[in-house]
């Protein structure tokens, strides 16, 4: 059955109330029965919950084959915890048929690809999937279809019981002996622990894995001891150098700066750009550089940013410290400046993934966003964006908060170069629709700006400000004139991954890619 973005969703997926994507806000007003976990009572006072090994913690939580383990990705590509836990479960306890439900996975988790090939890990639910894991899933090696969700879609699915977590593993930079966790104060700091919060509340069992035990009580706690069964102290939870980069630098690339300046011009042309406006930006070159140019317009008009959300990095913390932004609310940190600021700098707060982006709660932060500036791997003439699959059809990205912020914000701006190497970023049809076109408003490229025809009000704003823009088809043709028109990818019928829209409907599917031959 074709969905609202024109993708053909096979009927065998449309069971147990699963529907195809119907357009944004389709679920508005519907009711949701939340699923509750089954948790153990620890009535008798415990001096400490520390157990001597991951194996002991797994045993205490009744780990067995067929279970779902959850993880959060604040340690990013420096994470050791996913591999460590899966190794203990599979190689030491001999468990099989396990499902990993993670907020995201990266190339740090390449060893999991082996467990997939051996049939020990049979399910993957995540936002990001990259490296070897992306390759083996794309080749159809995973026994069940992978499920890809956005950062807001994940807490929605957990709360709705669509994914039931048997054991949540919390990678904690610091914990006390009963499991109050924080993302700071240790040796592998990550700052915000926002993606772990829903896991801790909805998992049957919760295990904290830390490499820095601190005095009780570790406050203010991101994950609280009231939800924690066991604490395991290990030598190291991650590589600090890969957890947070030294400082996210603003790009010096003239092409990035030119696009960033155009983004700021577009923002300044809209009625939402007024004192107290709200803003989120990605950390990619041109998105981050937009901060710089935006500041100029803010100074010129003597206005301040009310608040900013998102994955946070140094330049935004800098603006907070200078008093140019009122509050920063933070679900994840990308560099040390942000890690060292959260809950330390006044008005720099932590939030959960649900509070950030969940479409099924009573109002996430993204719903109050004025502007979001995002990147894209591909964007098609229907303004649909792909940030998940490469041009070869292999899984190598993550929807992350892209679809959530695009849907919630009043003005969603995609900024991307028109071509990358030989790849046309603006194209006829994206490989996979990760953010539907009805949520995307403006496209800024190095060869011109296009506005979604669904937004005549924004077209008028740009016209009034004298900002030149063209139909998106023109940008596509320009791109193809430089790189040539690509052949269509060839797919098998087998669906290897299902991409859920943030509301839980099916937005797209990823099929197994056919081997390519040079013969026609």
């Amino acid at each position: 059955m074709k969905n609202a973005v024109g993708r053909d969703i096979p009927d065998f997926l449309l069971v147990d109330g699963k529907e195809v994507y119907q357009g944004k806000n389709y679920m508005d007003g519907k009711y949701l029965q939340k699923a509750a976990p089954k948790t153990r009572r620890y009535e008798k006072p415990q001096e400490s919950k520390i157990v001597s090994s991951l194996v002991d913690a797994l045993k205490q939580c009744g780990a067995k084959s067929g279970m779902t383990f959850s993880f959060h990705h604040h340690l990013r590509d420096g994470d050791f915890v996913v591999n460590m836990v899966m190794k203990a479960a599979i190689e030491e306890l001999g468990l099989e048929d396990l499902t990993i439900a993670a907020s995201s996975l990266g190339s740090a988790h390449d060893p999991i690809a082996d467990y997939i090939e051996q049939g020990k890990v049979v399910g993957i639910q995540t936002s990001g999937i990259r490296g070897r894991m992306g390759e083996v899933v794309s080749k159809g090696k995973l026994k069940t279809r992978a499920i890809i969700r956005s950062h807001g879609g994940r807490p929605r699915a957990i709360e709705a019981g669509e994914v039931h977590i048997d054991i949540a593993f919390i990678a904690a930079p610091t914990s006390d002996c009963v499991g109050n966790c924080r993302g700071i104060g240790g040796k592998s700091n990550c700052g915000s622990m926002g993606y772990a919060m829903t896991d801790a509340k909805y998992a049957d069992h919760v295990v904290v894995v830390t490499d820095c035990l601190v005095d009780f009580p570790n406050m203010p706690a991101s994950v609280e001891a009231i939800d924690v069964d066991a604490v395991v102290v290990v030598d190291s939870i991650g590589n600090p150098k890969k957890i947070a980069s030294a400082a996210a630098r603003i790009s010096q690339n003239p092409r990035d700066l030119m696009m960033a300046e155009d983004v700021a011009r577009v923002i300044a042309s809209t009625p939402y750009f007024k004192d107290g406006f709200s803003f989120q930006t990605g950390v990619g070159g041109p998105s981050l550089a937009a901060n710089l140019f935006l500041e100029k317009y803010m100074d010129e008009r003597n206005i301040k940013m009310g608040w900013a959300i998102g994955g946070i990095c140094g330049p935004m913390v800098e603006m907070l410290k200078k008093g140019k932004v009122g509050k920063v609310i933070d679900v994840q940190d990308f560099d040390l400046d942000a890690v060292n600021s959260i809950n330390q700098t006044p008005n720099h707060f932590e939030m959960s993934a649900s509070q950030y982006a969940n479409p099924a709660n009573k109002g996430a932060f993204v719903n109050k966003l004025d502007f979001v500036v995002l990147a894209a791997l591909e964007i098609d003439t229907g303004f649909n964006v792909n940030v998940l699959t490469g041009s070869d059809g292999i899984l190598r990205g993550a929807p992350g908060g892209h679809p959530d912020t695009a849907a919630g914000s009043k003005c969603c701006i995609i900024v991307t170069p028109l071509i990358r190497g030989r790849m046309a970023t603006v194209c006829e049809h994206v490989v996979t629709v990760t953010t539907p076109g009805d949520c995307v408003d403006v496209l800024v490229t190095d060869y011109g700006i296009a506005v979604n025809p669904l937004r005549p009000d924004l077209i008028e704003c740009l016209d009034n400000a004298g900002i030149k823009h063209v139909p998106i088809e023109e940008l596509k043709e320009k791109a193809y004139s430089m790189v040539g028109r690509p052949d269509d990818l060839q797919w098998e019928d087998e669906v290897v991954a299902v991409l859920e829209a943030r509301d839980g409907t099916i937005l797209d599917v990823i099929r197994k890619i056919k081997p390519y031959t040079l013969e026609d």
Partner: protein
Amino acid sequence: MEILKPAMAGTLESSDAQVMVEPGEDGIELSLESSVMNQYGRQIKATVLETLERLGVENARVAVVDKGALDCTIKARVECAVFRSCGQSAENIPWGGAVK
């Protein structure tokens, strides 16, 4: 043109292509690797073969490792590898002559 000795042109940098040519006996024997194979493999093959034809190369073993180069780059790298293979790269390069 006749391929007299093995020669190479280009790099493995992103957006470039590395082309190696060697003497061959039975027509053009092409091996192709590309970072954009699934979308542009056939076009790259056609570009390489056309360029060789224009240069009058009839027998050669040709290996192309493409890193997402545009057509103009691929043509230039093939052309250069062929000139180098027959000692024509030092002087009197027929730029824009044999290659259109």
